């Protein structure tokens, strides 16, 4: 294991890529730590970004990337002792509200924060409109300004089109232009820091190229960029240096051009330590529960696999690789899907499946969006849990509420839901307990096929084990469990078999003892490897 980095800048003092002697880093963060409860999610992380540099930030899920970014944004308060220095000038930590903006740091998150129903021009003005002192808008002037910005970056977008009419790539360009304008205005010409938080997963290759051209134009003027991504090839292509986090710690900072794909994987995944083996080997050779054939849904293409009784099958890949669309499509919840699913001796065309029909075949689906899609926060635990089994509690006099409550209370005890109060609103529970409620909601139906999307996102360690236990128990009783997740550790702990997706297709399969946290991460990252060779050839 990596030991906590000594002073990472002791050796970097000379190593920092300066454009001119004595230049101070645009951003120097030192000793940033963050503790949630008892977990240290960030441990003494330091990072330097030079003016005019594109600096990559990588790490597996849970490595602390987003916590670090959120600390810079002022959304998290770091533990005492952290330092932040911008252009040689100390900045206060924790960052006060709006402080990042005033200091010339601007963020572009994956959702881009654009209003699709407004025009490009209106979206470009959005930030100004929020703070401007002027009461009237001079549309002509604003339009000329935006046109000028686009021209400067050689972007061909009409400011008067609606954002909803533009492809994703153009939207990303607009969001970046907007953020850069903000930085230019607040930090001054040739200064400022743009943080791009995974802007590429949903972009086609040509869109990524356009985006990179824009990023190069931005740093050519002297501003700096932190580029957060999962894709090693993209990092190697666009960044000057890259910092890799692992388990909340600094795994290393490399000069991107000098590190190869393997080196990156090594830094992300860690040294090859034999992990405590939790995978349970091959699934028992039992009958096939469901056969998925040529399933295409959203980005997922031609997905074909079988899942057996009692098998826990993991689906994984980088964000945007389409693996998480598969359960949704099988449940009939994703319009425009194609393919077929054979279950219980019946072959169903995917386009004809509806949630009700899927449930009739004893398929259950627990979406990742806990209080948006899986359960209703303002309704009680009992109401949420009893929804799929209400028919069983019908008596001559209608719903038998005392019986329902007794049943829900029993389930609460069984799955260790705390507090076990059926009348309490679902939203009052912690993430882990809410997830136990929703898991119980489906497990009580004893489904033939249970599909889980990110079942332990935002769930604490204790609740995690309880959920794993519940999954294990269901699988022992013969339920086939399909788990879509980006969490390699979790998959390694519970799966008999893992299918790795890249660009919508299954690219590799891990079985039994071959399933480890490292092997999953490695396969996920390696899936993109062929692209590297091409870019190398081109470059």
């Amino acid at each position: 294991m990596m030991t906590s980095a000594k002073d990472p800048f002791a050796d970097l003092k000379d190593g920092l890529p300066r454009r001119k002697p004595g230049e101070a880093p645009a951003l120097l963060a030192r000793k940033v730590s963050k503790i949630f409860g008892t977990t240290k999610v960030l441990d003494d992380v330091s990072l330097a970004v030079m003016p005019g540099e594109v600096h990559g930030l990588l790490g597996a899920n849970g490595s602390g990337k987003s916590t670090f970014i959120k600390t810079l944004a002022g959304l998290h308060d770091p533990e005492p002792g952290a330092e932040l220095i911008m252009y040689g000038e100390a900045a206060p930590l924790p960052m006060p509200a709006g402080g990042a903006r005033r200091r010339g740091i601007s963020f572009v998150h994956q959702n881009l924060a654009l209003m699709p129903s407004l025009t490009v021009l209106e979206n470009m003005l959005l930030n100004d409109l929020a703070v401007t002192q002027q009461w009237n808008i001079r549309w002509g002037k604003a339009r000329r300004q935006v046109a000028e910005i686009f021209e400067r970056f050689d972007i061909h977008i009409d400011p008067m089109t609606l954002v909803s009419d533009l492809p994703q790539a153009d939207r990303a360009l607009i969001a970046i232009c907007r953020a850069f304008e903000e930085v230019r205005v607040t930090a001054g010409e040739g200064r400022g820091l743009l943080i791009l938080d995974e802007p590429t997963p949903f972009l086609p290759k040509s869109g990524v190229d356009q985006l990179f051209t824009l990023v190069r134009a931005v740093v050519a003027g002297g501003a700096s960029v932190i580029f957060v991504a999962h894709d090693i090839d993209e990092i190697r292509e666009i960044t000057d240096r890259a910092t890799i986090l692992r388990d909340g710690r600094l795994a290393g900072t490399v000069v991107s051009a000098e590190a190869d794909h393997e080196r990156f994987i090594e830094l992300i995944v860690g040294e090859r330590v034999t992990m405590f083996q939790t995978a349970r080997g091959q699934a028992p050779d039992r009958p096939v529960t469901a056969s998925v054939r040529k399933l295409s849904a959203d980005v997922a293409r031609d997905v074909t696999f079988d899942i057996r009784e009692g098998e826990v099958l993991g689906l994984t890949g980088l964000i945007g690789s389409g693996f998480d669309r598969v359960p949704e499509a099988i449940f009939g919840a994703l319009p425009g899907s194609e393919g077929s699913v054979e279950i219980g001796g019946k072959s169903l065309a995917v386009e004809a499946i509806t949630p009700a029909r899927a449930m009739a075949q004893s398929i259950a689906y627990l979406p990742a969006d806990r209080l948006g899609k899986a359960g209703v926060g303002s309704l009680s635990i009992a109401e949420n849990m009893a929804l799929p089994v209400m028919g069983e509690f019908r008596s001559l006099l209608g719903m038998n509420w005392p019986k329902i409550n007794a049943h829900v209370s029993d389930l609460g005890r069984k799955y260790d839901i705390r507090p076990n109060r059926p009348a309490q609103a679902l939203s009052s529970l912690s993430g882990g307990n809410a997830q136990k409620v929703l898991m119980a909601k489906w497990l009580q139906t004893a489904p033939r096929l249970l599909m889980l999307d990110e079942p332990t996102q935002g769930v604490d360690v204790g609740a995690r084990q309880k959920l794993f236990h519940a999954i294990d128990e269901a699988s022992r009783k013969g339920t086939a469990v399909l788990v879509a997740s980006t969490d390699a550790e979790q998959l390694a702990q519970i799966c008999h078999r893992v299918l790795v997706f890249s660009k919508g297709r299954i690219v590799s399969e891990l079985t039994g003892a071959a399933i480890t946290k490292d092997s999953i991460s490695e396969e996920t990252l390696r899936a993109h490897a062929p692209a590297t060779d091409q870019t190398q050839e081109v470059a």
Partner: protein
Amino acid sequence: MTAPDITPPAAAPRWREINWAGLAESYALVAALVVLFCIFAMLLPTTFFTWANVSTMLGSQAVLVFLTLALIIPLTTGDFDLSVAAILTISAMTIAVLNARMGVALPVAILAALCVGAIAGAANAFFILYFRIPSLIVTLGMGTFINGLTLWMSNSATIGGIDFALVMAVVGTRFLGIPLAFYYAILMAAAIWYVFGFTAMGRRLLFVGRGREVARLSGIQVDRVRFASLMASAMIAALAGVLYAGTIGAADPNSGNTFLLPAFAAAFLGATAITPGRFNPVGSVVAVYFIVIGITGLTMLGIQSFVQNLFYGGALVSAVALSQLVRKREEQQVG
């Protein structure tokens, strides 16, 4: 709907589980109704506090109870129905035109009125569900459209002379001194209370209103549920029209429309009582009579009729503000 007993059968003694603050909140409106009644009874012992007045209030406002009950169904599934008052009016007018003017037998006229309601409900549902237009817009337009039809079929005139049997069946006959209309309203409220609280359909309505995606991903056919709720609201509004025709023995093309705001006020005020935070029929009935007592009392005190508007409008806004407070508090419990 009284709160279904959802305290867990845990080992803790029952009395410790009683949530006094919650109880106070649930019955605050009931208490307010009693207090308001007592105040007017003391101020106006000879006019307000007479059986004649009380029974009239109970009987004549059954129409408003029906209309409020019609509203809370789509409100529960997350849709607005602003056309209920117009449906009430056209339903009453249909009876008047068919029965009084054209001499069609009363049962047939009533059946026709209900059919008109069904058509209006189906039209609402079609535009809302097929074209995915917000219910607020569809029913606002539909209400005005229906009102135009009503004016057209009546030549903008009041039509009297409806078969007296209807009047007898609604307000002419009394049981325990109260017009039958009141009992119809109570029966309807009881039916909805049962559906909301003790049927799977009731839970489906609630889930569709609170979380459409959750409902859809739990296998509920969301559009079917919304269709049913819009149909139910139109049909109950049409029934309210039948009662209205029976209450006044005639139909006029305008007065029915004035029920819209009080019905909304009562629906939202009712949602702060009995099961706070949810539209519920028992709360609605209490809210209707709270508003009616207030207005009747104030009118009898000689205060001018504009006070009605002050009361209805004020009740609606303060009811929504109150229920918002309830929600906020629930959110704070999230912790």
